[in-house]
């Protein structure tokens, strides 16, 4: 399954992907479109991606996570035009117990925000449109980081 989706995300489907009789702990994260940013009312939002790299980077994150913890990970990110309240990202992680499920789920969302080439453009209630950049963390480029 591709990690990027241009149709609404289905958390129940992701949970079903990772559910198994020996996995008694399932953690999920859903990130939705907020109705405000920096104090300004947001009307709608558009996600775009560097598709080939986003797929590759999501694959690497899932692989690394499943190597680090005894879990299975399902991950999807929405692209295209989203309305307020719609899910932008959904993650389901299943392990034998809750500790590894919570830890691995947190890891997946943090790494996604830090590494996966996805951008969003917000349209505000007053009609203005802006690219929003939040996810750059130091340490991805070497040496010296970024501005």
């Amino acid at each position, binding site marked *: 399954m591709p990690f990027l989706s241009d149709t609404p995300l289905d958390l129940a489907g992701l949970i079903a992907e990772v559910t198994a009789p020996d996995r008694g702990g399932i953690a999920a994260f859903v*990130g939705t479109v907020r109705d405000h940013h920096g104090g300004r009312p947001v009307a709608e939002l558009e*996600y*775009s*991606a*560097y598709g*080939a*790299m*986003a797929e*590759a*980077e999501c694959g690497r994150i899932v692989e690394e996570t499943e190597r680090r913890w005894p879990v299975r990970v399902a991950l999807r*990110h929405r692209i295209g035009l989203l309305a307020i309240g719609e899910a*932008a*990202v959904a993650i389901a992680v299943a392990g034998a117990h809750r500790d590894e499920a919570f830890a691995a789920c947190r890891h997946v*969302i943090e790494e*996604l*925000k*830090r*590494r*996966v*080439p*996805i*951008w*969003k*453009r917000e349209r505000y209630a007053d009609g203005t449109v802006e*690219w*929003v*950049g*939040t*996810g*750059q963390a130091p340490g*991805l*480029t*070497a*040496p*010296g*980081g*970024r*501005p």
Partner: protein
Amino acid sequence: MVTTASTTVHILLFASYAERLGLERIDAALRPGATVADALAYLRALPGGAELPARPLCARNLAHVGADAALADGDELAVLPPLAGG
């Protein structure tokens, strides 16, 4: 006989950077042994290129790299604005 070897790199721009330079893709003929920093210098010389930050995020062939990374003929170099997924 004189040959002028060069390294052709396929540069991709996205989101706000694509808007600033008014293009999403450009092929750059760089000197052999060129690095990501050389490709960025090439971009900065284009109209709108001066607006690129000093050290933008870059990816070579679908993986993050630093400015010192070497480029080979046929490589794809993506220059990535601040990420905003999730």
